[in-house]
């Protein structure tokens, strides 16, 4: 009886395996070829302790055709996805991974001037080499270039490929290896599945890990801008308007990049008006008062203002404000250099949110970068948090390998998330609180934050601590 049952069972199993192609075994399966995913792949293949791990990276986009060529053949304009790369991130990319960013497309800046859109509050943080402005494509393509240099064995980059299905190889056992089916018909069975697939992470959905957070109901408008001349002092400017912060950050030469967080409605307006009007509004937003801005938004929304009228009005009011300054040279300190143009095709918008996953790992699964957290861009920490996560994960995997652990087990992954969760919490709440304090227009609160900002501005050590936290992504 038992015997016949056994043979029947074997037969069924045999038929099942011959019907579907048997899955390919791999140690690490990375979903997502953004900086975090590529960083992990490079980290694994660079580390002498980890390079034996078979690694597969899939991405739906055209990584080989569109991302990789940037390194040898970048476009003659600056792309709009620009990030601020802080010290720990740059050390990880250049020293640990051995990748070399394209130096001619990086701009180091020496501090940031934070102003209040409705009061005279000012925090002028000076810090030589505070961070670097780098295009995300520069980061990605440098990592790809590094991987190509290594010519690693046991590495497979599958681009233009999507994940169709994820399941446990043994549905009863959540610590069993994970089966990932792809739209090219292949199936992989992996020891460790990495979700580096962004905010709408498929891996995160599969893992069942929950996140806490909210949408701000605001959008950020980004664009690459042209200045009338190269600035003497290379620094960033951020002005907190009641609708959200607007930031002006330097790129090489007479280029600069813009991140303007505002309401969804205004974001729609800002991306649809002619680029000449947009240019005027950017200049106005850093100098003029909130009532002026509201007037322009209204007029433009109703189509009651022509480009020439707008230009003249902004010019007039700006001159009025500059004339009221006690010292003319102050203008260069608190206002960014005026822009003359915006590259139209670089104007884009994306929704703003704050999310933080309750945990970054469980048996066989780890989440990296935006899959684990999403932040407001005002502190410039999003990419840095992602790459510092990757750094921590690489170190956790190295130490697990030294100790003979299964690198896909939760026990091996725990140090990674216990190191990163508190720091990420701190950076997320920093950005969130700044946003909340500054989006308020209730006069007592405006008064208190202005007082607070002016006090901070006078006390060097506090200012140093803040700029250090930003410059070292919370590791200061």
């Amino acid at each position, binding site marked *: 009886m038992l015997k016949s049952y056994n043979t029947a069972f074997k037969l069924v199993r045999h038929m099942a395996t011959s019907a579907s192609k048997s899955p390919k*075994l791999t140690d690490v399966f990375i979903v997502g070829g953004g900086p975090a995913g590529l960083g992990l792949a490079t980290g694994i293949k660079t580390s*002498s302790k980890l390079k*034996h791990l078979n690694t597969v990276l899939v991405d739906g986009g055209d990584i080989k055709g569109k991302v990789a060529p940037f390194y040898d053949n970048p476009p003659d304009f600056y792309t709009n996805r620009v990030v601020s790369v802080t010290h720990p991130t740059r050390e990880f990319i250049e*020293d640990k991974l051995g990748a070399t960013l394209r130096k001619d497309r990086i701009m180091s800046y020496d501090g940031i001037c934070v102003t209040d859109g409705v009061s005279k509050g000012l925090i002028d943080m000076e810090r030589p080499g505070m961070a670097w402005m780098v295009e995300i494509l520069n980061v990605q393509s440098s990592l790809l270039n590094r991987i190509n240099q290594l010519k690693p064995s046991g590495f497979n980059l599958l681009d233009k490929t999507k994940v169709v299905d994820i399941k446990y190889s043994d549905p009863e056992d959540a*610590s*069993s*290896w994970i089966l990932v089916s792809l739209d090219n018909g292949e199936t992989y069975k992996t*020891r460790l599945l990495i979700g580096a697939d962004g905010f709408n992470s498929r891996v995160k959905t599969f893992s069942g890990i929950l996140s806490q957070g909210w949408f701000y109901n605001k959008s950020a408008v980004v664009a690459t801008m042209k200045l009338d001349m190269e600035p003497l002092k290379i620094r960033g400017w951020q002005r907190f308007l009641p609708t959200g912060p607007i930031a002006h950050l330097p790129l090489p030469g007479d280029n600069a990049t813009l991140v303007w967080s505002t309401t969804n409605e205004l974001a729609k307006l800002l991306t649809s008006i002619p680029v000449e009007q947009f240019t005027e509004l950017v200049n106005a937003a850093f100098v003029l008062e909130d009532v002026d801005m509201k007037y322009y938004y209204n007029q433009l929304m109703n189509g009651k203002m022509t480009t020439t009228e707008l230009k003249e009005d902004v010019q007039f009011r700006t001159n009025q404000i500059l004339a009221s300054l006690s010292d003319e040279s102050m203008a260069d300190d608190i206002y960014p250099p005026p822009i003359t143009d915006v590259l139209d095709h670089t104007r884009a918008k994306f929704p703003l949110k704050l999310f933080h996953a309750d945990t970054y790992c469980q048996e066989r699964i780890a989440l990296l970068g935006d899959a684990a957290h999403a932040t407001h861009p005002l502190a410039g920490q999003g990419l840095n948090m992602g790459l510092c996560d990757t750094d921590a994960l690489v170190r956790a995997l190295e130490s697990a*390998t*030294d*100790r*003979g*652990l*299964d690198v896909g*087990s*939760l*026990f091996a992954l725990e140090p990674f998330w216990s190191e990163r969760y508190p720091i990420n919490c701190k950076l997320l709440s920093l950005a969130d609180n700044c946003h909340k304090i500054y989006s308020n227009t209730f006069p007592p609160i405006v008064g208190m934050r202005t007082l607070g900002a002016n006090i901070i501005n006078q006390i060097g050590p506090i200012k140093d601590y803040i700029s250090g936290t930003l410059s070292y992504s919370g590791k200061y």
Partner: protein
Amino acid sequence: MNRMQCLKSIKVRRSPWILTRFKSTDASASEVEHFRNLAPTWWDTHGNQRILHLMNLARLDFIQRNIRNTIKIENSDIYVPGFNYKKFLPKDISTAVQEEFDNEIEKILISRKLKVLDVGCGGGILAESMGRLPYVQHVTGVDLTKDCIEVAKLHAKKDPALKGKLTYELKAVEDVEPNEGYDIVTCFEMLEHVDSPSSILSHSWRKLKPNGILFISTINKDLISWFTTIFMGEYVLKIVPVGTHHLNKYVNSKDIIKWFQSTVPNKYQVMDVKGTMYLPFKAWVEHNCSDVGNYFLAIKKLPK
């Protein structure tokens, strides 16, 4: 659990010789029963064996360091600076020196294809870890609790990378074949669970090849050990199940070294002995007071 009961537990005398025992290295029936109950949760890294999983990290650090220390680099292409280079050389150069050095040691180790015997393997926590080290060719794990051996076999099957690298057997160390067949023999957290530690030691020693290393980890018989492993561990913090430890079975590190001195004089070399303690919320860390609390011991068998 109240204090009276705790105090009583210290006074427990060594269990009387069981009539059915026939092997000098046998564990008592009560120990076997105790571990039989633990078997199902052996691999639950968040359950009552978590402390052992955490300790395994420190064991591996100790083992790796001692094995690496036996390797001498003879390749003259590898630069081995004769000074504290980490202090004096720039960071990128010192890491490059270290990496080259480590890679060479790894290369030599891999060519040695070590064979490991894990005595008292339990559910296979140490055996699996050893099996994954690139320079270990094969690990044999033996234990006297059938359920533990089954758990170990089942768990090892989950990882294809371990295929062919692990064998688990339900047998006493004296029945393991062959003598002088293993480069590394480990007796981790087991001497405190047996009635006759000396016979375990002598049989384990016999299985070791010349130049092989015996690794031992157990607990000193002192008040601090009672306080940490039994009072705090079992009764107050309930990290491990009550009845896991018996103070009267603990073995002092000095006694082990004395045993070697009297049994195999001049044929052994104590490579390293380190105390180890658990820092809550952190990890197991090593310290230099090896005659207090838990300790690790590495002893090399000198060639004849």
